[in-house]
């Protein structure tokens, strides 16, 4: 204890000393503005910083939970298990990477698809789990997406997909590349049926996912300041050998360049998409 602390009144000293007893994770620092935020309050705010509106990345389940009505919900393709057609191994086996990702996320692959309701109207909603191998698209992701499209066609309802992905899943090699063709073909069928597809681009949406289903929305909508593009910024920097301008490949940049329809704050997404879909589907405004 330094001479200075001796001079302090007791109350201040105790506060300093008890800091170690605060449970981990109760407070969190905003990556946007460095403000220290109360975790529970941040969650109530849809994981958007109340100070600077920074949109934190969120899990697929939580994403869908915030978006859909609480009831009814039915998961599609939950039992699908990834194959390992090439018995791929780099420094680790693909099988082991899958198991590790399943353990950390509680998901068995990188896309969750639910049939449910949005303000009492039928909808199919899909969300990428970025924590599962970078939200990469392999065969299970592709198949679940197709199941989602088929359910939307069967129920004649819209499809919404929240993208968050680094791209194709290298460990499945050409099988993963073909998921781009597969998901795009499914969306072609949805479009032929006159049913809307809304693609919500969240941080980050890159590579093969961006170059297929994510850019094929009747409406492409982004959350604020999400990184969205085909090639990653580092790859581009290495190619053109110059520093990229600030805001490059961010939502606001894409809006300016005409690539997306709207940027919508996460806290307004549910309300706004319900209105948009009610117009596209010729229904009365949502209650």
């Amino acid at each position, binding site marked *: 204890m330094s001479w200075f602390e001796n001079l302090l009144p007791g109350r201040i000293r105790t506060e300093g000393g008890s800091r170690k007893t605060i449970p981990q994770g109760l407070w969190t620092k905003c990556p946007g503005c460095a403000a220290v935020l109360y975790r529970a309050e941040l969650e109530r705010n849809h994981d958007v910083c109340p100070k600077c509106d920074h949109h934190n990345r969120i899990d697929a389940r939580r994403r869908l939970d915030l978006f859909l009505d609480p009831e009814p919900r039915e998961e599609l393709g939950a039992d699908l298990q990834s194959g390992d057609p*090439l018995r791929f191994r780099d420094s680790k086996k693909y099988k082991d990477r899958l198991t590790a990702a399943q353990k950390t996320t509680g998901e068995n692959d990188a896309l969750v698809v639910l049939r449910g309701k949005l303000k009492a109207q039928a909808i199919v909603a899909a969300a990428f789990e970025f924590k599962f191998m970078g939200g990469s698209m392999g065969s299970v992701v592709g198949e679940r997406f197709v199941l989602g499209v088929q359910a939307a066609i069967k129920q004649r309802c819209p499809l919404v997909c929240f993208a968050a992905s680094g791209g194709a899943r290298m460990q499945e090699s050409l099988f993963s590349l073909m998921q781009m063709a597969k998901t795009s073909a499914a969306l072609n069928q949805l479009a032929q049926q006159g049913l809307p597809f809304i693609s919500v681009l969240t941080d980050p949406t890159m590579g093969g996912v961006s170059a297929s289903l994510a850019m094929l929305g009747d409406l492409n909508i982004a959350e604020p300041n999400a990184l969205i593009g085909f090639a990653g910024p580092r790859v581009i920097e290495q190619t053109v050998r110059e520093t990229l301008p600030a805001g490059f490949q961010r939502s606001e940049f894409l809006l300016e*360049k005409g690539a997306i329809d709207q940027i919508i704050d996460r806290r307004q997404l549910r309300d706004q998409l319900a209105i948009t879909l009610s117009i596209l589907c010729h229904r009365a405004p949502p209650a």
Partner: protein
Amino acid sequence: MNLDFLEFEQPIAEMLAKIEELRMMGNDSQVDIQDEIARLEAKSKALTASIFSRLTPWQTTQLARHPLRPYTLDYIEQIVDDFQELHGDRSFADDPSIVAGIGRLAGKPLMLIGHQKGRNTQQKIRRNFGMPRPEGYRKALRLLQMAERFRLPVVTFIDTPGAYPGVGAEERGQSEAIARNLFVMAGLRTPIVAVVIGEGGSGGALAIGVADRVLMLQYGTYSVISPEGCASILWKDAAKADLAAEAMAITASDLKQQGLIDEIIPEPTGGAHRDYATMANNLKAAMVDALEPLVTELPDLLMENRQKRLLAYGAFSA
């Protein structure tokens, strides 16, 4: 070292140089060395066959990128009659890394679209090393839709390291351009045959590769990411590209085995670049064969079958 030959081809280069030397000698000496030349030629052929019978996936990758390998326009010249190249996406520019146009294949009209690489430095830069920008894909899109309108079957030639990763390409929507082509090709009511003639580099290749039949030249490659790219991400070392090439199973024979392509088009001994004419003949025959059953199909049925095929891609269990 002969730069027209890859490292593993050097023994062949040496042998050919020796034959050439003998020929020169034969010209100004009285000795008849024709027998010796014939003997060496046979030996060189056997050597080539032996080297090419046990290529590693990485060596195949190098062959697919061989500086002498025939490119789209080389094949068009030999295969397509009355070819008319058509330019431009009608909104921004003409992208020379994709060539497209109409012509005749064995007397029948068709639309041909392919990646184009450059041969010398100047051409390489003009063709952007075969890496298209969005306007290239949008030119392809425009002509795909035109092909549907005029009931022209489409053949595409795939030969690209990938879509160009540049600032302008991103600004003009590289992702959307690729995605749109996948979407439209999946629903096109005219036959599409895609042929991987060299490098099938990821989304940039697939963007003109959605088809009723996918063919591949014997020493072509087709992969979700370049072996170097895969190695630098998964092995943290681009020099491990040979391992990545092996792990990703990117050769024609591997992909055929997995049911991801329909047919392998054989290359002449020593690869397509050693005999353009034979290669062009093989390619032409394969194109004619692939198109034949497709052109008589009803357009709606054709498209439905294509979609069924696309939706069946995947390796998973329930």
